[in-house]
């Protein structure tokens, strides 16, 4: 009888352990998928932004003949950010990729701000409807990026918390669930999207 009891006990403990490990592992996978998915949302908007910027530059070129430097800086920053984003999209949450995209995005926001400020000085450019539409579209995309970034950061926080608390942290190590990195725009003065004012 003792054998039977201990056997039943072992079975139950084993069952609980198996179920716990499966449950914890699955919850981590779910949360990881969730933040990766949230990055896909940012990716869509960033790509849209990278598509819009060359159009904007093309439109502004005719009016800003003397401001080649700024226009080139915008294109360079845009290309750098696009490359960084490709890397981040392949491996969202990876610390170095996220830092790279963060700083590239900050730089891009900076030069875009300069371009918008410059456009203020050219009434003809300001009156161009294509330019107006592009700027509006860009602002809207900018909003969408910040909204998607918020969702991504929330998802990353959820994942990081889960992998650090007991008892899931016992599973996170052996199964290689590393920490995920937030997407923050680093420089405080550039936290806002470029302001468009007319």
């Amino acid at each position, binding site marked *: 009888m003792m054998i039977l009891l201990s*056997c039943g006990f072992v079975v139950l403990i084993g*069952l609980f352990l198996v179920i716990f490990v499966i449950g914890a592992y699955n919850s981590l996978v779910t949360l990881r998928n969730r933040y990766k998915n949230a990055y896909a949302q940012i990716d869509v908007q960033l790509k849209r932004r990278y598509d819009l910027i060359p159009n904007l530059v093309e439109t502004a070129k005719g009016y800003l003949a003397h401001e080649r430097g700024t226009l080139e800086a915008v294109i360079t920053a845009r290309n750098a950010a696009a490359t960084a984003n490709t890397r981040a999209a392949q491996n969202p949450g990876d610390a170095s990729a996220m830092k790279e995209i963060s700083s590239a995005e900050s730089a891009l926001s900076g030069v875009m701000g300069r371009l918008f400020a410059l456009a203020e000085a050219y009434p003809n450019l300001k009156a161009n409807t294509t330019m*107006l539409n592009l700027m509006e579209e860009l602002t809207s995309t900018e909003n969408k990026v910040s909204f998607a970034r*918020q969702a991504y950061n929330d998802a990353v926080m959820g994942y990081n918390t889960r992998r650090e608390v007991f008892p899931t942290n016992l599973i996170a190590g052996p199964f290689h669930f590393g920490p995920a990195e937030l997407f923050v725009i680093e420089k405080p003065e550039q936290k806002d999207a470029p302001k468009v004012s007319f």
Partner: protein
Amino acid sequence: MDFFERQEKARRHTAFLVVYFIVAIVLMIVAVYLVVALIFTGFELKNAEGDTSGAWSQIQVFIGSAFATLAVISLGSFFRTLALARGGRAVAEMLDGRLVNSNSTDPNERKLLNVVEEMAIASGVPVPQVYVMDGEAGINAFAAGHSASDAAISVTHGAMTMLTRDELQGVIAHEYSHLLNGDMKLNLRLMGLIFGILCLTVIGRILLRARGKNAAPFLALGLALIIIGWVGVLFGRLIQAAVSRQREFLADAAAVQFTRNPLGLAGALKKIGGVAEGSQLQSHRAEEASHLFFANGLKSELFGFATHPPLIERIRALDPSFDGKYPSVVLPDTPAAAAPPPLPGASPLVQPPPPPRAQPPPPPLPTAKPPPLPIVRPPPLPGAPTIVAQQAVIADIGQPRTEHLQYSIDLHQAVPPSIQTAAHDPLGAHALICAFLLADDAAVREKQLEELGRATSEAVRQETIRIWPDVQDIPPHARIPLVDLALPALRRLSPGQFEQFRGAVNKLIGSDSETDLFEFMLQKIVMRHLDTRFYPERRPVTQFYDLRPLVRDAGVLLSATAYAGADDATQAHAAFAKGAESLGQIARTEIPWLPPTECDLTHLDAALDRFAQSVPQIKKNVLTACAETVAFDALIQPREAELLRAIADALDCPIPPFLQA
């Protein structure tokens, strides 16, 4: 057989299923007992020769093994069911599905999303989450979930790329019929139970690892448990297969009735026969979910265990002239070949730009201007009132027809591009719902927008202002479909953003000086469908099997509907009386007529929640009464029609859009 009968039948099927499983589990307990008795007490009896308590210890052993077996099976089922409580998402993610972005620009994904969205609008259900199983080259698909609001549709990569639009439409229509027939809940239950039985074999495997000098009986028990477990799973499979096979033919038939294009579905089935991978799935988890799939997902199935009727029989049922020769399928080089024309919203930006908002009046540009929305219910002309027979309203529930599909395709194409884009994007969808709740009066609107900015963020406020001019022009009949379209994007909000969204919507409704029933229903639809995503634990359970305890709630619902559709109290009472008469007969008691203060939005909210927890037959009776009340003046206004659809939605009874007579 109407929607409610099918729902009722699905419920009864579940009951049968449980009986079958109880029989299977009892058999397994007996088997486990016999094995335990043989292995262990066999040893013990040798030690205690001549002991008269043998019979007593046998009972103990029986109780012990019965308890252990039950514990294992029910624990396993419980945990699996708990995991599946997250709805269709859980299943789709379990099978390595990838959530398709609702604003995807990939032509194949766009095609898939459009087909799913059209079906959703045509049947009046929220657009489900769409997943693609990237690793699967075969052609297959499934729908899973507890209800329409947490449903997920998942297709293999092969199905997405190899099928034409018509074929894909057939497959998706097949999945929708599972969704509307109440098959999905049944299927999830099955998965939970089978997993529980499977757990026995897991324990067996653990016991097989036992080492040491006393390990022999454990090894024997382990082996026996594996065998018993597999026999149990075998029984489970038989039940699973029997339920599934019968439902597949039904779903095929419903899909054809829906699309009225048997060749689309037949084409998809023929392609399955034609490609090397067929409909097989690579995922090792596929076995557990094999009964969910569009076509046979496992490598080989013996007769009796096949979850799907033979391919050729299914094709012949659709296309009697089929000669049994499957076409050879080549993967299209250019995925865009089969894709529909790109969505207006997804087109490159630098096409004719819309006029700037700052310059009133906006000069309409020819290409940017969408075709006008199809008018379902033109403003009633004198002498030509629009009449909707309430019988037709009830009969259409859960049974969309081809006309609904065509209407939905037209509507889908007529929505302005800016609104299309907004509905597919989380921020845009958030702003869209808020914009629906803004007041027409400029001063009130200004105040509302201010509150919105405070409750959420500047980004939301700006986006709402940006799309407001387009939202303003959307006629009432297009609003619920747009809400349904926006739901997948809203499901992508983070929990924090969802809380802000919920707060903002409540604020906007509260800030309106007048209490608008339609706005309230809009909010109810959005929140009800999103709650399943953000609070999966709050799922309603059926509690009411009789109309009697719900008589007062029926009074609230009918009175509120009557007030909404009538100009004065006498007219309202007459409308109420029409609906209350038949319902009162069914309940064998009088439905109370309530003053406006007792059927306000708070009461209405509670009443709808209670009705949502009742059996299908009660829902049907109540909806019929509502339809009668609305149709009292022989004329259903667009707003009344949408109110009716919203009430039906709150009761989980999807009504397809009303069509022009």
